[in-house]
């Protein structure tokens, strides 16, 4: 039963994806290279108890975020609203009345670290880069503050320091790239979790692990690993007991976001031929009409180029 439902879901999503794509974009997407050994995190939301230790660990390790007192992370009243990450928070845990057997469920959010990140493609100065490990990181020094990355992100993750007058930054989870990932340590949130909600590892292994869990406990999970295919795949992967829409994950196709714009850009600028071609064509028309006119009406006349 469950298997057929899963296949059905995959098929519908695949068809929806194909309708969105058109064949050419598929080829375009495959040009984008992804390291098969890259890291990822599998988040099993069914195991989360909402202790917010991950939020606390995140705040502690990212010392440039506004400081929060330790007690604040024990305050359950924050669950009364659905929070989002902001300029001072890289990760949030929300509570949902959707757990199995009447218990509340929780979901942790942070940057998904896409395999084909829209922010990297959108950024006008290359302030976003994607590391081979999977981390998508931001260089404030390059940033001009146009905030196009925020409009581009399919998960609405990057936040902005709108109150910072002179040196505002785009803020989002760094995958603890500087502090931990680059020295072989797992992200702070992963380490802090007492329930082992998060598993850090090779992304390909995590997908196998996720499938294994869904197979072993079909009554516990919806048969879908969120992030395996969404917008071409994300480094952070999710398992859930309820449909992902119910815990505020957007329903997305499988086509990478940059795959919508980059083919247009690379067609327009293919070896600079289209602009040069247009230039030559316009020049040709100008020359032809002008020489014809000069011959017709005014053999001795001067073709007026100036704005006079």
């Amino acid at each position, binding site marked *: 039963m469950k298997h057929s439902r899963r296949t059905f879901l995959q098929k519908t999503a695949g068809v929806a994806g194909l309708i*969105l794509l058109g064949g050419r974009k598929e080829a375009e997407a495959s040009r984008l290279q992804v390291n098969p050994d890259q890291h990822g995190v599998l988040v099993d939301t069914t195991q989360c108890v909402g202790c917010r230790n991950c939020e606390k660990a995140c705040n502690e390790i990212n010392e440039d975020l506004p400081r929060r007192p330790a007690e604040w992370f024990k305050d359950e009243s924050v669950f009364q609203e*659905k929070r*989002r990450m*902001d*300029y001072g928070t890289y990760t949030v845990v929300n509570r949902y009345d959707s757990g199995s057997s009447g218990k509340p469920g929780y979901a942790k959010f942070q940057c998904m670290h896409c395999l084909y990140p*829209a922010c*990297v*493609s*959108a*950024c*006008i*100065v*290359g302030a976003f880069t994607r590391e081979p490990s999977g981390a998508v990181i931001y260089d404030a020094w*390059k*940033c*001009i*503050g*146009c*905030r*196009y990355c*925020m*409009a*581009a*992100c*399919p*998960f*609405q993750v990057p936040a*902005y*320091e*709108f*109150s910072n*007058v002179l*040196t*505002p930054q785009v803020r989002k989870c760094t995958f603890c790239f500087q502090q931990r990932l680059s020295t072989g340590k797992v992200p702070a949130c992963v380490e802090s979790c007492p329930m082992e909600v998060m598993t850090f590892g090779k992304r390909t292994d995590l997908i196998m692990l996720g499938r294994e869990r869904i197979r072993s406990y079909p009554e516990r999970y919806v048969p879908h690993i969120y992030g395996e295919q969404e917008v071409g795949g994300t480094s952070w992967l999710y398992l859930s007991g309820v449909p992902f829409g119910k815990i*505020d994950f*957007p329903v997305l*196709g499988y086509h990478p*976001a*940059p795959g*919508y*714009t*980059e083919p*247009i*850009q690379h067609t*327009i*600028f293919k070896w600079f031929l289209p*602009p040069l071609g*247009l*230039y030559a064509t*316009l*020049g040709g*028309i*100008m020359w032809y*009409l*002008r020489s014809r006119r000069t011959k017709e009406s005014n053999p001795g006349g001067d073709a*007026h*180029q*100036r*704005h*006079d």
Partner: protein
Amino acid sequence: MIMSVHEHAAPVQNRFFTAGMKLLTAIMLGGLAFGLYRMVFGLRAVTNLNDQYPLGLWIGVDVATGVALAAGGFTSGALVYVFNRENFHAVIRPALLTALLGYTFVGIGLMFDLGRWYNIWHPAVPSMWQGNSVLFEVGMCVMIYLNVLYLEFFPIVCERFMGRVNLPGRLARFNDAVDMLLRFADHILGKIMFLFIIAGVVLSCLHQSSLGTLMVIAPYKMHPLYRSQLGPLFFLTSAFAVGLTMIIFESMIAGRSLKRKPEMHILTPLAKIIPYLLGIYIFVKLGDMVMRKSYLYLFQDHPAVIMFWIEFGLLTVVPFFMFMSSDIRRSPRGLFIAAAMYVVGILLNRSTVFFIAYEPLYATKAYIPAIGEFALTTGLILTIVFVYRALVTLLPVLPAPEKEH
């Protein structure tokens, strides 16, 4: 008039600070004060932008609409120089000035919107070039085109000051040298201007279209009516149409303000071209709607749908039919209304794309621009009007009044 297709341009003689201009200046300064306030106290203090709505009125109007409405520069250049329609020559200079000011103020307006405005030069640094970014292409093209516009405009400055260079005080000793420089620049530019005119058309086609590609990267956040992959084609074809429309609009406003008769002998034939260009846009837009079946959303209760009916139905299709009518084209009042309608239509279209049809995933309430955002936008538009009037008073831009002949 038949002998000389090139109407003579001259600085206007009107008094600069009329009552209307004084009022305009007051409102302008009030609006610009909000710009100063933003620079001192930051974006949060002036705008209603937030993490859900990162792009607002200043991007939708000051930048995107500004670029579209400045399209008169390249469309008139293409028409007169490339397609050799000399009968429209008189519109070249005012259209060029409008484009020059339009693009200059796109840059200035952007400075208020950018969080790190002092880094605005970064896209020009090769180590930061980002060829995948649509915005990078827009930025580079706009930057280069702005230079092209200044080059295209420079002969007008030369014409005004050649043989009349009169620098104050001690600088007077450089009079001859400056005069020689102007003559040299005028001579060289006159010879190679066609290169820049074609470059201006190509650069414009590139960035006008790419502005329409910007939101294509976020299809999941765009209302289906505005989600198409053909975004660049919509922006390009509508820019062609609004370029000529804006020439008419601006000529009639300037004419009224300077107490001149509208130049109907030029504007009426110019208006005759618009239905072709606007028709292409409407055709592409409707064709896309049929192909994507987005017409299914036409009666949904949604701000983007309401905007679609207003900006497309009322302010694009209706002016299209108005421009088709030869009676309206010949009537100064009718022509002005048609042009004004489509200019507002473009403003609403660009705004819709950037912050109304854009539906962020976790927004709890819609973005409505703050008073300060409206104020600065108004201030910048009025500054363009102010500088336009100053420059047509100073330089030979507008055709000399008939009576002088």
